[in-house]
Protein backbone atom coordinates (compact mmCIF):
# COMPACT_ATOMS: atom_id res chain seq x y z
CA UNK A 1 0.00 0.00 0.00
CA UNK A 2 1.26 3.47 -0.79
CA UNK A 3 2.19 5.66 2.12
CA UNK A 4 -0.49 8.26 2.66
CA UNK A 5 0.59 11.84 2.88
CA UNK A 6 -0.45 13.71 5.97
CA UNK A 7 -1.57 17.23 6.72
CA UNK A 8 -3.40 19.88 4.73
CA UNK A 9 -2.00 18.79 1.34
CA UNK A 10 -4.24 15.74 1.48
CA UNK A 11 -7.23 18.04 1.40
CA UNK A 12 -5.92 20.69 -0.97
CA UNK A 13 -4.47 18.54 -3.74
CA UNK A 14 -7.84 17.08 -4.80
CA UNK A 15 -9.36 20.57 -4.54
CA UNK A 16 -6.62 21.80 -6.86
CA UNK A 17 -7.50 19.00 -9.32
CA UNK A 18 -11.10 20.24 -9.40
CA UNK A 19 -9.81 23.78 -9.89
CA UNK A 20 -7.67 22.77 -12.85
CA UNK A 21 -10.64 21.02 -14.44
CA UNK A 22 -12.81 24.13 -14.12
CA UNK A 23 -10.02 26.38 -15.43
CA UNK A 24 -9.49 24.11 -18.44
CA UNK A 25 -13.24 24.18 -19.06
CA UNK A 26 -13.28 27.98 -18.92
CA UNK A 27 -10.18 28.25 -21.14
CA UNK A 28 -11.71 25.93 -23.73
CA UNK A 29 -14.90 28.02 -23.69
CA UNK A 30 -12.92 31.29 -24.00
CA UNK A 31 -10.99 30.23 -27.07
CA UNK A 32 -14.23 29.04 -28.64
CA UNK A 33 -13.42 25.36 -28.66
CA UNK A 34 -17.13 24.58 -28.34
CA UNK A 35 -20.33 26.55 -28.79
CA UNK A 36 -22.26 27.48 -25.62
CA UNK A 37 -25.25 25.95 -27.37
CA UNK A 38 -23.82 22.45 -26.99
CA UNK A 39 -21.98 22.93 -23.72
CA UNK A 40 -22.38 25.84 -21.28
CA UNK A 41 -19.49 27.88 -19.95
CA UNK A 42 -18.59 27.87 -16.24
CA UNK A 43 -19.91 31.44 -15.95
CA UNK A 44 -23.31 30.39 -17.34
CA UNK A 45 -23.42 27.52 -14.90
CA UNK A 46 -22.64 29.75 -11.92
CA UNK A 47 -25.45 32.04 -13.04
CA UNK A 48 -27.76 29.05 -13.38
CA UNK A 49 -26.72 27.82 -9.94
CA UNK A 50 -27.52 31.20 -8.39
CA UNK A 51 -30.92 31.09 -10.09
CA UNK A 52 -31.94 27.67 -8.76
CA UNK A 53 -30.62 28.51 -5.31
CA UNK A 54 -32.61 31.76 -5.26
CA UNK A 55 -35.90 30.27 -6.40
CA UNK A 56 -35.50 27.42 -3.88
CA UNK A 57 -35.62 24.65 -6.45
CA UNK A 58 -32.13 23.36 -5.71
CA UNK A 59 -32.89 22.86 -2.02
CA UNK A 60 -36.34 21.31 -2.46
CA UNK A 61 -35.19 19.03 -5.29
CA UNK A 62 -32.15 17.87 -3.35
CA UNK A 63 -34.35 17.08 -0.36
CA UNK A 64 -36.79 15.23 -2.61
CA UNK A 65 -34.02 13.11 -4.13
CA UNK A 66 -32.36 12.38 -0.80
CA UNK A 67 -35.73 11.45 0.70
CA UNK A 68 -36.36 8.84 -2.01
CA UNK A 69 -32.87 7.41 -1.70
CA UNK A 70 -33.10 7.28 2.06
CA UNK A 71 -36.45 5.51 2.14
CA UNK A 72 -35.67 3.04 -0.65
CA UNK A 73 -32.19 2.26 0.59
CA UNK A 74 -33.21 1.88 4.24
CA UNK A 75 -35.97 -0.55 3.33
CA UNK A 76 -33.47 -2.50 1.23
CA UNK A 77 -30.91 -2.60 4.07
CA UNK A 78 -33.49 -3.63 6.65
CA UNK A 79 -34.70 -6.51 4.48
CA UNK A 80 -31.51 -7.53 2.70
CA UNK A 81 -29.06 -7.73 5.60
CA UNK A 82 -31.21 -10.04 7.76
CA UNK A 83 -32.09 -12.12 4.69
CA UNK A 84 -28.41 -12.36 3.75
CA UNK A 85 -27.55 -13.49 7.28
CA UNK A 86 -30.27 -16.15 7.26
CA UNK A 87 -29.26 -17.43 3.81
CA UNK A 88 -25.52 -17.22 4.47
CA UNK A 89 -25.76 -19.48 7.48
CA UNK A 90 -27.67 -22.23 5.73
CA UNK A 91 -25.91 -23.83 2.79
CA UNK A 92 -28.94 -25.69 1.45
CA UNK A 93 -31.17 -22.62 1.51
CA UNK A 94 -28.44 -20.57 -0.08
CA UNK A 95 -28.00 -23.10 -2.88
CA UNK A 96 -31.73 -22.91 -3.52
CA UNK A 97 -32.17 -19.14 -3.49
CA UNK A 98 -28.85 -17.96 -4.85
CA UNK A 99 -29.50 -18.72 -8.55
CA UNK A 100 -32.75 -16.76 -8.30
CA UNK A 101 -30.92 -13.77 -6.84
CA UNK A 102 -28.19 -14.03 -9.44
CA UNK A 103 -30.87 -14.06 -12.12
CA UNK A 104 -32.66 -10.97 -10.81
CA UNK A 105 -29.52 -9.03 -9.98
CA UNK A 106 -28.27 -8.18 -13.48
CA UNK A 107 -31.68 -6.86 -14.58
CA UNK A 108 -31.21 -3.12 -14.52
CA UNK A 109 -33.59 -1.41 -12.12
CA UNK A 110 -34.48 0.87 -15.02
CA UNK A 111 -36.00 -2.11 -16.81
CA UNK A 112 -38.54 -2.22 -13.98
CA UNK A 113 -39.73 1.33 -14.68
CA UNK A 114 -42.78 0.35 -16.76
CA UNK A 115 -43.92 -2.16 -14.15
CA UNK A 116 -43.11 0.21 -11.31
CA UNK A 117 -45.27 2.91 -12.85
CA UNK A 118 -48.19 0.55 -13.40
CA UNK A 119 -47.96 -0.85 -9.88
CA UNK A 120 -47.22 2.34 -7.98
CA UNK A 121 -48.52 5.12 -10.24
CA UNK A 122 -46.44 8.27 -10.35
CA UNK A 123 -44.73 10.24 -7.61
CA UNK A 124 -42.45 8.90 -4.90
CA UNK A 125 -43.51 5.24 -4.64
CA UNK A 126 -42.20 4.00 -8.03
CA UNK A 127 -38.92 5.88 -7.53
CA UNK A 128 -38.53 4.46 -4.03
CA UNK A 129 -39.30 1.01 -5.39
CA UNK A 130 -36.60 1.29 -8.06
CA UNK A 131 -34.05 2.42 -5.49
CA UNK A 132 -35.06 -0.44 -3.26
CA UNK A 133 -34.53 -2.92 -6.12
CA UNK A 134 -31.20 -1.41 -7.07
CA UNK A 135 -29.85 -1.68 -3.53
CA UNK A 136 -31.52 -4.88 -2.43
CA UNK A 137 -29.85 -7.48 -4.65
CA UNK A 138 -26.24 -6.39 -4.19
CA UNK A 139 -26.89 -6.12 -0.43
CA UNK A 140 -28.33 -9.64 -0.11
CA UNK A 141 -25.66 -11.25 -2.24
CA UNK A 142 -22.80 -9.50 -0.48
CA UNK A 143 -24.15 -10.12 3.04
CA UNK A 144 -24.69 -13.76 2.19
CA UNK A 145 -21.13 -14.04 0.96
CA UNK A 146 -19.78 -12.28 4.03
CA UNK A 147 -21.62 -14.66 6.38
CA UNK A 148 -20.50 -17.71 4.45
CA UNK A 149 -16.96 -16.36 4.61
CA UNK A 150 -16.71 -15.99 8.40
CA UNK A 151 -13.57 -17.69 9.65
CA UNK A 152 -14.73 -21.22 10.60
CA UNK A 153 -12.68 -20.96 13.78
CA UNK A 154 -14.92 -18.18 15.11
CA UNK A 155 -18.01 -20.24 14.38
CA UNK A 156 -16.51 -23.23 16.17
CA UNK A 157 -15.47 -21.16 19.16
CA UNK A 158 -18.96 -19.68 19.33
CA UNK A 159 -20.59 -23.10 19.09
CA UNK A 160 -18.28 -24.39 21.79
CA UNK A 161 -19.37 -21.51 24.01
CA UNK A 162 -22.97 -22.53 23.41
CA UNK A 163 -23.87 -19.37 21.51
CA UNK A 164 -26.86 -19.83 19.24
CA UNK A 165 -29.86 -18.09 17.74
CA UNK A 166 -30.06 -14.34 18.14
CA UNK A 167 -27.08 -14.24 20.50
CA UNK A 168 -24.91 -15.96 17.90
CA UNK A 169 -26.04 -13.45 15.28
CA UNK A 170 -25.64 -10.36 17.43
CA UNK A 171 -22.40 -11.29 19.17
CA UNK A 172 -20.54 -13.15 16.42
CA UNK A 173 -22.11 -13.17 12.95
CA UNK A 174 -22.94 -9.48 12.70
CA UNK A 175 -19.65 -8.16 14.12
CA UNK A 176 -17.64 -10.63 12.05
CA UNK A 177 -19.32 -9.50 8.84
CA UNK A 178 -19.61 -5.82 9.67
CA UNK A 179 -16.46 -4.76 7.77
CA UNK A 180 -17.78 -6.40 4.59
CA UNK A 181 -21.28 -5.11 5.20
CA UNK A 182 -20.03 -1.54 5.48
CA UNK A 183 -18.26 -1.90 2.15
CA UNK A 184 -21.47 -3.05 0.50
CA UNK A 185 -23.45 -0.30 2.22
CA UNK A 186 -21.12 2.17 0.54
CA UNK A 187 -21.44 0.53 -2.83
CA UNK A 188 -25.21 0.19 -2.61
CA UNK A 189 -25.81 3.76 -1.54
CA UNK A 190 -23.80 4.79 -4.60
CA UNK A 191 -25.96 2.59 -6.79
CA UNK A 192 -29.11 3.98 -5.17
CA UNK A 193 -27.96 7.52 -5.88
CA UNK A 194 -27.30 6.60 -9.53
CA UNK A 195 -30.75 5.14 -9.85
CA UNK A 196 -32.71 7.95 -8.17
CA UNK A 197 -31.63 10.36 -10.87
CA UNK A 198 -32.72 8.00 -13.61
CA UNK A 199 -36.02 7.28 -11.86
CA UNK A 200 -36.75 10.97 -11.45
CA UNK A 201 -36.34 11.54 -15.16
CA UNK A 202 -39.46 9.50 -15.75
CA UNK A 203 -42.01 9.27 -13.02
CA UNK A 204 -41.86 12.41 -10.89
CA UNK A 205 -42.03 16.17 -11.00
CA UNK A 206 -39.32 16.96 -8.47
CA UNK A 207 -35.77 15.94 -7.65
CA UNK A 208 -32.38 16.48 -9.22
CA UNK A 209 -33.10 14.03 -12.03
CA UNK A 210 -36.24 15.99 -12.82
CA UNK A 211 -34.21 19.24 -12.73
CA UNK A 212 -31.98 17.86 -15.46
CA UNK A 213 -34.73 16.51 -17.69
CA UNK A 214 -36.85 19.63 -17.19
CA UNK A 215 -33.89 21.87 -18.06
CA UNK A 216 -33.20 19.83 -21.16
CA UNK A 217 -36.78 20.30 -22.31
CA UNK A 218 -36.32 24.05 -21.84
CA UNK A 219 -32.92 23.91 -23.56
CA UNK A 220 -31.25 25.22 -20.39
CA UNK A 221 -27.96 23.30 -20.64
CA UNK A 222 -26.46 25.39 -17.83
CA UNK A 223 -29.03 23.91 -15.43
CA UNK A 224 -28.34 20.42 -16.79
CA UNK A 225 -24.69 20.82 -15.81
CA UNK A 226 -25.62 22.38 -12.44
CA UNK A 227 -27.75 19.29 -11.77
CA UNK A 228 -24.88 16.99 -12.70
CA UNK A 229 -22.43 18.85 -10.48
CA UNK A 230 -24.77 18.80 -7.48
CA UNK A 231 -25.43 15.08 -7.99
CA UNK A 232 -21.69 14.41 -8.02
CA UNK A 233 -21.08 16.47 -4.91
CA UNK A 234 -23.88 14.78 -2.97
CA UNK A 235 -22.50 11.42 -4.07
CA UNK A 236 -19.19 12.32 -2.46
CA UNK A 237 -20.93 13.40 0.75
CA UNK A 238 -22.94 10.15 0.95
CA UNK A 239 -19.80 8.08 0.46
CA UNK A 240 -17.94 10.05 3.11
CA UNK A 241 -20.80 9.66 5.56
CA UNK A 242 -20.72 5.88 5.28
CA UNK A 243 -16.95 5.76 5.41
CA UNK A 244 -17.15 7.32 8.84
CA UNK A 245 -18.65 4.03 10.03
CA UNK A 246 -15.38 2.32 9.19
CA UNK A 247 -13.75 4.20 12.01
CA UNK A 248 -15.70 2.43 14.76
CA UNK A 249 -13.15 1.08 17.28
CA UNK A 250 -14.57 -2.44 17.11
CA UNK A 251 -13.76 -2.47 13.39
CA UNK A 252 -10.07 -1.75 13.94
CA UNK A 253 -9.33 -5.47 13.65
CA UNK A 254 -10.24 -5.71 10.00
CA UNK A 255 -7.94 -2.84 9.13
CA UNK A 256 -5.18 -4.22 11.35
CA UNK A 257 -5.40 -7.52 9.54
CA UNK A 258 -4.88 -5.90 6.17
CA UNK A 259 -1.72 -4.16 7.29
Amino acid at each position, binding site marked *: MNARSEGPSRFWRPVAAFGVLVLAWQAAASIGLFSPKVFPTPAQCVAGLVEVVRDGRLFSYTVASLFRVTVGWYIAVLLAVPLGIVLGGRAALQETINPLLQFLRPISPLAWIPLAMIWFGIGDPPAVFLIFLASFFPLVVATMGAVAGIKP*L*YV*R*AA*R*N*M*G*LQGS*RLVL*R*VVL*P*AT*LPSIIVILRISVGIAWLVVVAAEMIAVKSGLGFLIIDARNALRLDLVVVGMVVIGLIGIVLDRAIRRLEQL*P*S*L*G*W*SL*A*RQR
Partner: protein
Amino acid sequence: MHDSADVPKIRVERVTKSFEERRRKSRHPLAVSDRGEVVTILDDVSLDVREGELVMLVGHSGCGKSTLLNVIAGFERPTSGRVLIDGVEVAGPDPRRMFVFQENSLFPWLTVAENVALGLESAGPGERATVPELLQLVGLSGFGDYYPHQISGGMGRLAELARALAMNPDILFMDEPFAALDFMTRCLMREEVLNLMALLGKTVLFITHDLDEAVQLGDRIVILSDRPARIQQVFEIPDPHPRDVSAGELGRIRRRAYQEMGVNPVL
Protein backbone atom coordinates in the same frame (compact mmCIF):
# COMPACT_ATOMS: atom_id res chain seq x y z
CA MET B 1 -25.42 -40.98 38.76
CA HIS B 2 -22.28 -42.85 38.11
CA ASP B 3 -19.70 -43.65 40.67
CA SER B 4 -16.69 -41.57 39.74
CA ALA B 5 -14.35 -44.29 40.93
CA ASP B 6 -15.07 -46.72 38.11
CA VAL B 7 -16.30 -44.41 35.34
CA PRO B 8 -13.42 -42.61 33.64
CA LYS B 9 -13.89 -38.91 32.88
CA ILE B 10 -13.39 -39.59 29.19
CA ARG B 11 -13.70 -43.00 27.57
CA VAL B 12 -12.81 -43.36 23.92
CA GLU B 13 -14.24 -46.67 22.80
CA ARG B 14 -12.88 -48.24 19.61
CA VAL B 15 -13.18 -45.03 17.63
CA THR B 16 -12.60 -45.22 13.91
CA LYS B 17 -12.89 -42.27 11.60
CA SER B 18 -12.72 -42.56 7.86
CA PHE B 19 -14.19 -40.72 4.96
CA GLU B 20 -14.55 -41.16 1.27
CA GLU B 21 -12.52 -38.59 -0.53
CA ARG B 22 -15.20 -36.89 -2.56
CA ARG B 23 -13.38 -36.24 -5.75
CA ARG B 24 -15.22 -35.44 -8.93
CA LYS B 25 -14.52 -37.59 -11.89
CA SER B 26 -10.83 -37.22 -12.46
CA ARG B 27 -9.82 -35.54 -15.67
CA HIS B 28 -6.47 -37.22 -15.54
CA PRO B 29 -6.17 -39.62 -18.50
CA LEU B 30 -4.39 -42.26 -16.42
CA ALA B 31 -6.95 -42.25 -13.62
CA VAL B 32 -8.25 -45.78 -13.27
CA SER B 33 -11.31 -45.08 -11.18
CA ASP B 34 -13.39 -42.03 -10.52
CA ARG B 35 -14.70 -43.42 -7.26
CA GLY B 36 -13.50 -41.69 -4.12
CA GLU B 37 -10.85 -43.38 -2.08
CA VAL B 38 -11.72 -44.30 1.49
CA VAL B 39 -9.23 -42.65 3.79
CA THR B 40 -8.98 -43.95 7.33
CA ILE B 41 -7.71 -41.39 9.78
CA LEU B 42 -8.36 -43.03 13.13
CA ASP B 43 -8.16 -46.78 13.42
CA ASP B 44 -9.71 -48.43 16.45
CA VAL B 45 -8.53 -45.96 19.06
CA SER B 46 -9.44 -46.66 22.68
CA LEU B 47 -8.38 -44.51 25.58
CA ASP B 48 -9.52 -43.78 29.13
CA VAL B 49 -8.75 -40.48 30.80
CA ARG B 50 -9.13 -40.06 34.55
CA GLU B 51 -10.63 -37.01 36.13
CA GLY B 52 -8.01 -34.30 36.62
CA GLU B 53 -5.48 -36.02 34.40
CA LEU B 54 -3.33 -34.14 31.93
CA VAL B 55 -2.89 -36.39 28.91
CA MET B 56 -0.53 -35.39 26.15
CA LEU B 57 -1.34 -36.68 22.65
CA VAL B 58 1.78 -36.84 20.53
CA GLY B 59 2.18 -37.75 16.90
CA HIS B 60 3.69 -36.67 13.64
CA SER B 61 2.03 -33.84 11.72
CA GLY B 62 -1.07 -35.02 9.90
CA CYS B 63 -1.32 -38.28 11.82
CA GLY B 64 -4.87 -37.61 12.92
CA LYS B 65 -4.38 -36.34 16.45
CA SER B 66 -6.44 -33.22 15.78
CA THR B 67 -9.19 -35.39 14.33
CA LEU B 68 -9.15 -37.51 17.47
CA LEU B 69 -9.49 -34.41 19.63
CA ASN B 70 -12.29 -33.07 17.41
CA VAL B 71 -14.16 -36.34 17.74
CA ILE B 72 -13.76 -36.37 21.53
CA ALA B 73 -14.88 -32.73 21.72
CA GLY B 74 -17.93 -33.48 19.59
CA PHE B 75 -17.03 -31.33 16.59
CA GLU B 76 -16.83 -34.44 14.41
CA ARG B 77 -18.68 -37.73 14.57
CA PRO B 78 -16.75 -41.00 14.64
CA THR B 79 -17.43 -43.43 11.80
CA SER B 80 -17.66 -46.22 14.33
CA GLY B 81 -17.10 -46.51 18.04
CA ARG B 82 -18.12 -43.86 20.55
CA VAL B 83 -16.86 -41.37 23.05
CA LEU B 84 -18.29 -41.24 26.56
CA ILE B 85 -17.77 -38.33 28.89
CA ASP B 86 -18.93 -38.94 32.47
CA GLY B 87 -20.57 -42.06 31.07
CA VAL B 88 -22.70 -40.14 28.55
CA GLU B 89 -22.14 -40.41 24.83
CA VAL B 90 -20.83 -37.21 23.24
CA ALA B 91 -23.32 -35.78 20.73
CA GLY B 92 -21.78 -32.40 20.00
CA PRO B 93 -19.71 -29.58 21.41
CA ASP B 94 -20.64 -28.55 24.92
CA PRO B 95 -19.75 -25.46 26.96
CA ARG B 96 -18.64 -27.73 29.82
CA ARG B 97 -15.78 -28.86 27.62
CA MET B 98 -13.81 -26.04 26.09
CA PHE B 99 -11.52 -26.23 23.13
CA VAL B 100 -8.44 -24.04 22.92
CA PHE B 101 -7.47 -23.83 19.30
CA GLN B 102 -4.16 -23.87 17.53
CA GLU B 103 -4.88 -20.51 15.95
CA ASN B 104 -6.08 -17.41 17.65
CA SER B 105 -9.84 -17.73 17.98
CA LEU B 106 -10.40 -14.70 20.18
CA PHE B 107 -13.13 -12.61 18.63
CA PRO B 108 -11.14 -9.71 17.15
CA TRP B 109 -14.07 -7.27 17.35
CA LEU B 110 -14.14 -7.59 21.14
CA THR B 111 -11.50 -6.45 23.61
CA VAL B 112 -9.74 -9.05 25.74
CA ALA B 113 -12.07 -8.26 28.65
CA GLU B 114 -15.15 -8.43 26.41
CA ASN B 115 -14.03 -11.80 25.07
CA VAL B 116 -13.71 -13.14 28.59
CA ALA B 117 -17.01 -11.52 29.55
CA LEU B 118 -18.75 -13.24 26.64
CA GLY B 119 -17.48 -16.52 28.06
CA LEU B 120 -18.84 -15.66 31.49
CA GLU B 121 -22.17 -14.60 30.00
CA SER B 122 -22.45 -17.87 28.10
CA ALA B 123 -21.55 -20.04 31.09
CA GLY B 124 -24.39 -21.77 32.82
CA PRO B 125 -25.61 -20.87 36.27
CA GLY B 126 -23.38 -21.45 39.24
CA GLU B 127 -20.57 -19.72 40.97
CA ARG B 128 -18.74 -17.49 38.57
CA ALA B 129 -15.43 -15.76 38.56
CA THR B 130 -15.30 -12.13 37.42
CA VAL B 131 -13.48 -10.78 34.40
CA PRO B 132 -10.70 -9.13 36.48
CA GLU B 133 -10.23 -12.36 38.45
CA LEU B 134 -9.84 -14.39 35.28
CA LEU B 135 -7.46 -11.91 33.72
CA GLN B 136 -5.40 -11.94 36.89
CA LEU B 137 -5.43 -15.74 36.91
CA VAL B 138 -3.69 -15.84 33.53
CA GLY B 139 -1.50 -12.82 34.27
CA LEU B 140 -3.23 -10.37 31.94
CA SER B 141 -4.40 -7.77 34.44
CA GLY B 142 -4.20 -4.37 32.81
CA PHE B 143 -4.64 -5.74 29.28
CA GLY B 144 -8.43 -6.07 29.39
CA ASP B 145 -9.07 -3.03 27.20
CA TYR B 146 -6.73 -4.12 24.42
CA TYR B 147 -8.05 -5.65 21.23
CA PRO B 148 -6.60 -9.05 20.30
CA HIS B 149 -4.56 -7.61 17.43
CA GLN B 150 -2.88 -5.24 19.85
CA ILE B 151 -1.37 -7.92 22.11
CA SER B 152 1.34 -10.50 21.51
CA GLY B 153 0.75 -14.09 20.44
CA GLY B 154 1.52 -15.46 23.90
CA MET B 155 -0.85 -13.02 25.57
CA GLY B 156 -3.49 -13.97 23.03
CA ARG B 157 -3.18 -17.62 24.04
CA LEU B 158 -3.52 -16.68 27.70
CA ALA B 159 -6.55 -14.52 26.95
CA GLU B 160 -8.11 -17.43 25.12
CA LEU B 161 -7.39 -19.68 28.06
CA ALA B 162 -9.07 -17.11 30.30
CA ARG B 163 -12.12 -17.09 28.03
CA ALA B 164 -12.24 -20.88 28.09
CA LEU B 165 -11.87 -20.92 31.88
CA ALA B 166 -14.67 -18.36 32.15
CA MET B 167 -17.03 -21.11 31.04
CA ASN B 168 -15.86 -23.09 34.08
CA PRO B 169 -15.40 -26.27 32.03
CA ASP B 170 -14.58 -29.72 33.42
CA ILE B 171 -12.38 -30.52 30.48
CA LEU B 172 -9.99 -28.49 28.36
CA PHE B 173 -9.02 -29.65 24.91
CA MET B 174 -5.87 -27.96 23.73
CA ASP B 175 -4.86 -28.45 20.12
CA GLU B 176 -1.22 -27.45 19.87
CA PRO B 177 -2.08 -24.20 21.60
CA PHE B 178 1.49 -22.96 21.74
CA ALA B 179 2.77 -24.26 18.40
CA ALA B 180 2.83 -20.84 16.78
CA LEU B 181 4.78 -19.19 19.60
CA ASP B 182 8.50 -18.70 19.80
CA PHE B 183 10.52 -21.07 21.96
CA MET B 184 10.94 -18.84 25.01
CA THR B 185 7.28 -17.82 25.07
CA ARG B 186 6.29 -21.46 24.75
CA CYS B 187 8.38 -22.35 27.81
CA LEU B 188 6.68 -19.57 29.77
CA MET B 189 3.28 -20.82 28.61
CA ARG B 190 4.05 -24.32 29.87
CA GLU B 191 4.75 -22.87 33.27
CA GLU B 192 1.45 -20.98 33.17
CA VAL B 193 -0.45 -24.12 32.24
CA LEU B 194 1.16 -26.14 35.01
CA ASN B 195 0.39 -23.49 37.60
CA LEU B 196 -3.19 -23.16 36.37
CA MET B 197 -3.78 -26.90 36.34
CA ALA B 198 -2.31 -27.33 39.80
CA LEU B 199 -4.74 -24.64 40.92
CA LEU B 200 -7.87 -25.67 39.03
CA GLY B 201 -7.51 -29.43 38.60
CA LYS B 202 -9.22 -29.66 35.21
CA THR B 203 -9.02 -32.71 33.01
CA VAL B 204 -6.86 -31.76 30.05
CA LEU B 205 -6.23 -33.38 26.69
CA PHE B 206 -3.31 -31.63 25.11
CA ILE B 207 -1.99 -32.17 21.60
CA THR B 208 1.60 -31.37 20.87
CA HIS B 209 4.34 -32.57 18.63
CA ASP B 210 6.94 -31.29 21.03
CA LEU B 211 8.13 -34.27 23.07
CA ASP B 212 9.88 -32.13 25.65
CA GLU B 213 6.62 -30.31 26.20
CA ALA B 214 4.87 -33.65 26.55
CA VAL B 215 7.33 -35.00 29.12
CA GLN B 216 7.38 -31.71 30.96
CA LEU B 217 3.62 -31.32 31.33
CA GLY B 218 1.89 -34.66 31.04
CA ASP B 219 0.67 -37.16 33.61
CA ARG B 220 0.59 -39.51 30.67
CA ILE B 221 1.91 -39.40 27.13
CA VAL B 222 -0.02 -41.14 24.37
CA ILE B 223 1.96 -41.56 21.19
CA LEU B 224 -0.11 -42.01 18.04
CA SER B 225 1.18 -43.83 14.99
CA ASP B 226 1.21 -42.32 11.53
CA ARG B 227 -2.04 -42.38 9.56
CA PRO B 228 -4.24 -44.21 10.17
CA ALA B 229 -3.61 -43.27 13.76
CA ARG B 230 -3.52 -46.03 16.32
CA ILE B 231 -2.22 -45.82 19.84
CA GLN B 232 1.38 -46.80 19.47
CA GLN B 233 2.77 -46.35 22.96
CA VAL B 234 1.70 -44.97 26.32
CA PHE B 235 4.04 -43.60 28.98
CA GLU B 236 2.85 -42.97 32.52
CA ILE B 237 4.73 -40.15 34.21
CA PRO B 238 4.02 -40.20 37.93
CA ASP B 239 6.79 -37.74 38.75
CA PRO B 240 5.70 -34.58 40.55
CA HIS B 241 6.53 -31.11 39.28
CA PRO B 242 8.96 -29.41 38.97
CA ARG B 243 10.53 -31.83 36.55
CA ASP B 244 13.95 -31.91 34.97
CA VAL B 245 13.13 -33.69 31.74
CA SER B 246 16.70 -34.67 30.95
CA ALA B 247 17.59 -36.35 34.24
CA GLY B 248 17.02 -39.84 35.66
CA GLU B 249 13.84 -41.78 34.93
CA LEU B 250 12.26 -38.82 33.08
CA GLY B 251 15.28 -38.62 30.82
CA ARG B 252 14.86 -42.29 30.06
CA ILE B 253 11.16 -41.82 29.21
CA ARG B 254 12.05 -38.83 27.08
CA ARG B 255 14.66 -40.81 25.16
CA ARG B 256 12.27 -43.71 24.64
CA ALA B 257 9.54 -41.36 23.46
CA TYR B 258 11.94 -39.83 20.96
CA GLN B 259 12.80 -43.30 19.68
CA GLU B 260 9.10 -44.20 19.39
CA MET B 261 8.68 -41.16 17.18
CA GLY B 262 11.61 -42.24 15.08
CA VAL B 263 13.83 -39.37 16.13
CA ASN B 264 17.28 -39.67 17.63
CA PRO B 265 17.30 -38.10 21.12
CA VAL B 266 21.07 -37.73 21.22
CA LEU B 267 22.82 -35.95 18.43
